[in-house]
């Protein structure tokens, strides 16, 4: 029995070492960010939303893209240091600066970069991810291969900048080196007692892939300043199987 306990201890230690080598430093070594994502954060290694790595978001329609933009803005608002700047890179920009304000992001602290072609976009993204002065880098692109994404991941491992890669209408969802793959779908807002109007933004958040973590799907709501989650986490495995 004692041997077994020793074994499990050893396994946890080894797991931690593996995480360390893969770029997931334990939370004591860098800034801890209060995301307020509740259950979702439990899916990640060490139980914290990983900053300083590349996340991937996939959208298949304008509505999903808008929801993903909202989610990214909310994440941006949480991880930006006071007065910190971030970069939003895209080839066909639709994001509207004043709309960021309600997610706790100062729109004047975001630099928008418009690029004509994909090649320049990736080059600029890499340059930005290498710049430690930035809080986060958001890139809107269509497709990205494994090699390119690995390059981006290597860049952030040095600089500890958080990268959010938003793939809009990708022709094929290939595997990438990103730490997590998300899909955000808008869901109907809830209003109490038949009040008129539209309620707070609600999204169905699917964590399709997590490196060293548990995928899953949840419904969350953005109230000004924080996320709220009203139902318990659904078992992740089925959702993953359904999503393919």
């Amino acid at each position: 029995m004692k041997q077994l306990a020793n074994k499990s201890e050893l396994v946890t230690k080894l797991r931690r070492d593996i995480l360390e080598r893969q770029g997931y430093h334990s939370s004591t070594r860098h800034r801890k960010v209060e995301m307020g994502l509740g259950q979702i954060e439990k899916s990640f290694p060490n139980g914290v939303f990983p900053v300083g790595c590349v996340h991937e978001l996939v959208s298949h329609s304008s509505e999903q893209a808008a929801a993903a933009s909202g989610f990214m803005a909310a994440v941006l608002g949480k991880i930006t240091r006071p007065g910190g700047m971030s970069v939003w890179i895209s080839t066909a920009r639709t994001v509207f600066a004043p709309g960021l304000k309600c997610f706790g992001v100062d729109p004047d602290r975001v630099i928008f970069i418009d690029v004509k072609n994909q090649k320049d976009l990736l080059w600029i993204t890499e340059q930005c991810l290498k710049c430690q002065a930035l809080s986060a880098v958001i890139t809107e692109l269509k497709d990205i291969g494994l090699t390119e994404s690995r390059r981006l991941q290597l860049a952030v491992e040095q600089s500890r900048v958080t990268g959010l890669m938003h793939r809009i209408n990708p022709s094929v969802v290939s595997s990438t080196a990103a730490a997590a793959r998300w899909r955000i779908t808008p869901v109907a807002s809830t209003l109490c007692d038949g009040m008129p109007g539209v309620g707070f933004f609600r999204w169905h958040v699917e964590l399709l892939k997590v490196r060293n973590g548990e995928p899953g799907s949840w419904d969350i709501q953005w109230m000004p300043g924080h996320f709220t989650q009203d139902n318990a986490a659904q078992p992740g495995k089925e959702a993953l199987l359904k999503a393919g």
Partner: protein
Amino acid sequence: MQSRYAAIWFKNLLCDQRAVRMPELKETAFVLAAPRKGRMLITASSVDAEQKRILPGMVLADARAVFPELTVLEDKPGLAEKLLGSIGQWALRFTPIVAVDGADGLLLDITGCAHLWGSEKLYLQDINQRLNQKGYHVRCAIADTPAAAWANSRYGRQKAIIEPAGQAQAISVMPPAALRVEPPVIEKLEKLGFYQLAGLIGMPRSMLRRRFGPQLLLRLDQVLGQAPEPITAIEPDEPYRETLPCLEAIRSGAGIEIAVQKLLEAICQRLSKESKGLRKALLTAHRMDGSSQQIQIGTHAASCSTQHLLKLFVLQVPKLRPDLGFELFELEALMLEDTEQHTQMLFAQSASGDSAEIAELLDTITAKTGQGSVSRYLPDEHYWPERSVKVAGSLQQMPVFKWPTERPRPISLLTTPEKIHVTAPVPDYPPMLFRYLGMIHNVIKADGPERIEQEWWIQAGLHRDYYIIEDHQGARYWIFRLGHYGKDFPEWYLHGFFP
């Protein structure tokens, strides 16, 4: 050597400058006016206005009574000095010693210069001609002393050039005002019947001093050349330009980079001494066959770091085509800005260090993708969504007021609103369903309307009634109706997506 001076009098300096800037003002009567003691006073008038007897010092209302079609422009204080300074810089081509003289003239020490033009007559002709071509009305004169040249340019009737030692005779027919003395003294002289200086020159000095003060005597001596009159020469502007001739033609990229580095080192050393930074620079590479090629860089924040600027140039070096090789490189700073004080850096080290790093990053990106690809937005005082943001001028510029939050705004906005087909109850209700991209969306929840009026002073058009719509799938949209329900049904548009 007999010293010689030239005086240039700009009769209508400020008006001429406006006419140069706005050619439609040429040959029209216009004046510059500024408020003084609760009324508008004319400070400068154009040649055509002067012909209509509208002179500086008149009240604007009087001038309008004389000539109702008079064009009036605002006077900017301090412009004359600035303008004379830059004309003075230009005039350095005629002589190395140029001084700004009052608010309407220049004084040139032309000792030993005029013979290069052939004669003083040709010299003066050249100055006159060049300034006339630029659109300035000038009177020039040459004399032995600055004071005599000044007097001759303003009050001379006979000839522009007073021969050496001829000033006493020349000024004898001029009025007392030609002496540049205080107006009360001039008044007194005229009252006593001195309409010409001839009578004054022979007078006993003690009497003149007793009656008119020492200034008159000094001026008289200065005109006649018996007392010196120092002039303060302007410092020539040294252009921020460096050149590098090469012994052998340079053909390789590495060679060009070394050349650029040498040029940058020289220019950056000077910039950092003057605590200035570069915003725009132009590199001209002259090829052996006589043609030249240019590459230009721009930065987001003033920079005098050789390393960073070199990086920006290196990104563009592949654009150069050396062929036979370059033999001369020329680097010119097109735009400079004062760099921030270092004391400020001490207090907010991390923040400004960050912004410097970001500025360098953005410069690299701009060098790669071209101008206009990087933008940062500030709130603007407009409700109309397309106009509610303006592009920030620099990385340091902060918003003047807070971002508005009282009205929800979509996270993504279409650059041009897209037309949708709706079924909506009249008059003020949101639609029940709408069709967009071939899909029918049933509206479940809606919020609105938020009416945004077109700003008539910017653009004419109909107002928009915005609704936030949530469809049966939970997606949220921002749609608007253009105009009122009237004879024909108003059009509906989709303008954005809420998250």
